């Protein structure tokens, strides 16, 4: 199975395309055939447009034949989480609210991928409006984990991680507001990168919590993640929070840096609730870095215990504001039961949103409401400052932090029905979003039961090249990436 085209990394496929051993149409057909063979079980896709993908691939082959290949993504099929706009294609956010919505324009990342010659392939399932950690909150039904079809793929970008793990795309994009790239990457055994806030444009991304959201790649290898990041990063005048930072050659930089690095182990990330097998795998990864000559230093992020509460105040507040636009008037679901214009708002939102989205809108509206704003929202923003300072203080002593990505491996569908229990899945990932930092998850082993485990590396602002280099050193010394799920 490892010889199958759909399990090969971008870098390897690039060589095959370059020498014309394989065409983009052949590669795209292989991915489509694989998707048709397995997606009835994995259910990673909300929709795909086969004819459109083949047409893009054919155009790529024409460019290559004319000597106009555009780089490492030329002709590579890439899947996008269904919160990222692709002009003329459906965009649902896995919500009934947008069940019939068609994107009027391309997101900046979509335009950049197209400009890099990639074949845009399908829209991937997620928790509704990216709210969740298991992809069970999708209005169109859950995606499952290719390593064990009775378990969740993580979330909210669970379609993006599951499709990649199952060979239904060569790489994918997701979005990460509190861990929604890194946690599903960990649970599905692939690489997932959440860039520094502002490195990647959010233009054309359906907003969840605007001060936390970032788009980032899922990939089979660290090198592939570097290729993807380079394609999508960079300043965009259409996103006023986009940062004017240089975009380095991440692929070359990731190979050039070899360490040794000073690595911090935040003691607060190894407490109660951490699965023993996850802990053991992460400890082995730490031992590996130590053996490589890295200085391993215990550090403290003293406000870690407040991350979850801070996150759920800020994220729901921003979500309640962002989701006010879904009013049934201009686009999206409009109730047929409404008596008058104002009633359209109440009933369209009641019919269009699922339970988790409603819960978060209510919580977010409450914490912003008159009399509660100072006690909740303003206080959370102040604690956010302290959380960010914790990280910056740690970076005076270390180059990056090593932690588990998720406290637990993939859990059973329906296992975490209590919202608070599910929120606790994000405890190692949300601090990164609050502080705006880059972080990635790289596979670091399997449980005895065969479930993937992820190692999280958290870096300094805009130090993605360094993070990729650290992850690559670990990845190249292990062969976790060569294992693929065997679908029954």
């Amino acid at each position: 199975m490892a010889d199958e085209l759909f399990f090969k990394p971008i870098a390897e496929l690039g060589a095959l395309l370059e020498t014309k051993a394989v065409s983009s149409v052949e590669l795209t057909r292989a991915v489509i055939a694989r998707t048709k063979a397995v997606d009835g079980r994995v259910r990673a896709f909300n929709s795909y447009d086969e004819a459109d993908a083949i047409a893009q691939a054919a155009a790529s082959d024409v460019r290559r034949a004319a000597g106009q290949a555009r780089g490492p993504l030329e002709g590579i099929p890439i899947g996008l989480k269904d919160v990222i706009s692709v002009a003329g294609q459906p965009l649902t956010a896995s919500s009934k609210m947008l069940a019939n919505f068609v994107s009027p324009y391309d997101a900046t990342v979509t335009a950049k991928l197209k400009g890099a010659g990639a074949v845009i392939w399908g829209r991937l399932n997620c928790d509704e409006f990216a709210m969740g950690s298991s992809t069970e909150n999708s209005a169109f039904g859950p995606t499952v984990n290719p390593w064990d079809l009775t378990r969740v793929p993580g979330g909210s970008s669970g379609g993006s991680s599951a499709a990649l793990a199952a060979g239904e795309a060569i790489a994918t994009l997701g979005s990460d507001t509190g861990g929604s790239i890194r946690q599903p990457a960990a649970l599905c055994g692939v690489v997932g990168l959440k860039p520094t806030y502002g490195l990647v444009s959010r233009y054309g991304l359906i907003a969840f919590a605007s001060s936390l959201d970032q788009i980032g790649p899922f990939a089979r290898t660290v090198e592939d993640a570097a290729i993807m990041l380079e394609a999508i990063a960079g300043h965009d005048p259409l996103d006023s929070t986009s940062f004017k930072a240089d975009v380095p050659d991440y692929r070359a930089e990731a190979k050039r840096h070899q360490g040794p690095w000073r690595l911090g182990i935040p003691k607060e990330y190894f407490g109660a609730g951490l699965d023993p097998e996850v802990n053991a795998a992460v400890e082995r990864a730490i031992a590996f870095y130590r053996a490589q000559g890295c200085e391993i230093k215990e550090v403290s992020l003293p406000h870690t215990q407040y991350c979850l509460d801070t996150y759920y105040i800020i994220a729901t507040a921003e979500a309640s504001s962002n989701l006010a636009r879904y009013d049934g008037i201009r686009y999206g679901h409009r109730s047929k039961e409404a008596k008058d214009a104002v009633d359209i708002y109440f009933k369209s939102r009641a019919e269009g949103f699922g339970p988790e989205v409603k819960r978060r809108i209510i919580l977010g509206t409450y914490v912003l409401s008159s009399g509660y704003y100072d006690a909740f929202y303003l206080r959370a923003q102040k604690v956010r400052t302290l959380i960010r300072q914790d990280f910056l203080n740690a970076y005076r002593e270390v180059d990056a932090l090593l932690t588990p990505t998720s406290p637990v491996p993939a859990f059973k569908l329906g296992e975490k029905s209590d919202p608070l229990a599910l929120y606790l899945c994000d405890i190692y990932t949300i601090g990164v979003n609050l502080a705006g930092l880059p972080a990635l998850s790289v596979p670091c082993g399997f449980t005895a039961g065969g479930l993937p485990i992820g190692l999280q590396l958290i870096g300094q602002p805009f130090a993605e090249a360094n993070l990729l280099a650290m992850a690559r050193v670990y990845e190249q010394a292990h062969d976790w990436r060569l294992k693929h799920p065997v679908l029954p």
Partner: protein
Amino acid sequence: MTMSSAPDLNIDHVAKLARLALTAEEKARFSQQLGDVLHHIEQLGKVDVTGVEPTAHAFPITNVWADDIARPGLTVETALRNAPAQRDNMIVVPKVVE
């Protein structure tokens, strides 16, 4: 108001602010679940935030200006493509003024 006071979530009031019609069953369930979450959130009241500036964005960027140059926008047809109801290049809504 201090964070240690028991959270009192008036779900009818908040649902009205959010323009969200909830069923009686949803009100009961959300009240209980959000009560749990708010109880958890109360611990933020223990943090000393005296003199701490709030963070709205991790990397404060202010006064971002765009050049005042006209660019092509969406066509009327594209802009109306997702409208639930339209007529004569306009979105149709129920009568709002008597």
